């Protein structure tokens, strides 16, 4: 489950930042800083996750999506 979610998260991130080197993404570090994402990117990220996984993500939960590891944990728990 977690691996599947992780693959989806990386795919959605790749869609938003096609030039990003996702292989070197540190899973425990805030990826907004690693990938230089702005608020529009984050909104598109949430929209992409919702479309791919069908998970409702309230705006209040956005901080729980800060790192790759946190994101996978949050999404896996809500599927």
């Amino acid at each position: 489950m977690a691996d599947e979610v992780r693959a989806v998260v990386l795919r959605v991130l790749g869609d938003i930042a096609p030039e990003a080197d996702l292989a070197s993404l540190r899973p425990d570090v805030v990826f907004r800083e690693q990938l230089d994402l702005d608020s529009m990117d984050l909104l598109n990220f949430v929209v992409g996750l919702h479309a791919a996984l069908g998970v409702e993500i309230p705006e209040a939960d956005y901080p729980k999506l800060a790192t790759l590891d946190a994101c996978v944990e949050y999404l896996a728990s809500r599927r």
Partner: protein
Amino acid sequence: MPILGADMTAGTLIAWRKRPGDRVTRGDVIAEVETEKGLIDVEVFVSGVLERILVEPGATVPTGTALASIREDAPSAAPGPVVAIPVAPPAAAPAPAMPVAREPGRRARVRVSPLARKLAATLGIDPTTLRGTGAGGAVTREDVERAAAARPAGPVPAAPPAAARPRMDVARMRQSIAAAMARSKREIPHYYVTHTIDLHRALSWLAEENARRPVTERLLYGVLLIKAVALALHDVPELNGVWRGDRVEPSAAVHIGVAISLRGGGLVAPALHDVDRQPLGALMGAFRDVVQRARGGGLRSSELSDATITVTSLGEQGVESVLGIVYPPQVAIVGFGRIVERPWVVGGAVLPRPVVTATLSADHRVSDGHRGGLFLAAVERLLQSPERL
């Protein structure tokens, strides 16, 4: 070749979307050009029939060069005569209205990320020949690397022909920005005013509003700022205009250029049109669309040439304020810093409040600090009633 900003001196025609004999309607995209700002769709501003193509793909020409000739529709309602085509005849009857279907065999637009474009140029690969695996079919760095790895061993091929050679690079964009900003600082006597605005009401309203909206329709706080700026211009309209020769033309329409940073470096500021008349939901949709196209390709010529004021925000990068440089021929730019929590006096009590620093940089030949201050005060007032934006 349209002038897509004060800094643009030339552009390269990449492809025609219409052919001689095709009917064109005002607003149709007829060509793609490459400029320092990326790949831009060129629109027409008249309706008629495309008679002749004057610039071939691959050619770089100065701004102002005629790209094609269009025979405008006669003012009467009667249909005009059949057009005699001086060059290759059209393959079919007049083209349908937008969107224009691509004919088989014609090269479709290929979106290329800035990094991929740069790498492709270095490796001597034409990115437009690759199948993109990124968002919306964008060619990514990985696609270019795969293509390079799959290339037969041997010497690196010569640079692609002029028509296919990537021309946009970060260094060129920086030169373009430098030229425009140097001109601005040299010619425009700037003045600056700053105001700190309490965002408690705006952010509280936004949180409630977004909780009601499906994820695809949520609003970004930046849209509230853009709309507030647009409405505040009704109070101080002299900030909304452009220089034409030696005088300023106030604009009845509010077209706000939004500064968008590009991933490979540099920035563009395409316009959101008629911002003061758009509801927030529609404005958010337009904002999302223009950011996506700024970063993926597909901005329209009109979007890069008709902004009447610019809004920039560097707040997400951690700075508290930004003092912008007016982008000629405009006369003002509004900047917003990041939201910070500060002690704030409310009804005699000190409370923590989210605040933002708004700045106005403006042309002193057109307005003065008093009017600029009234403008920022209007922005603040509008943000205290977000439900009315």
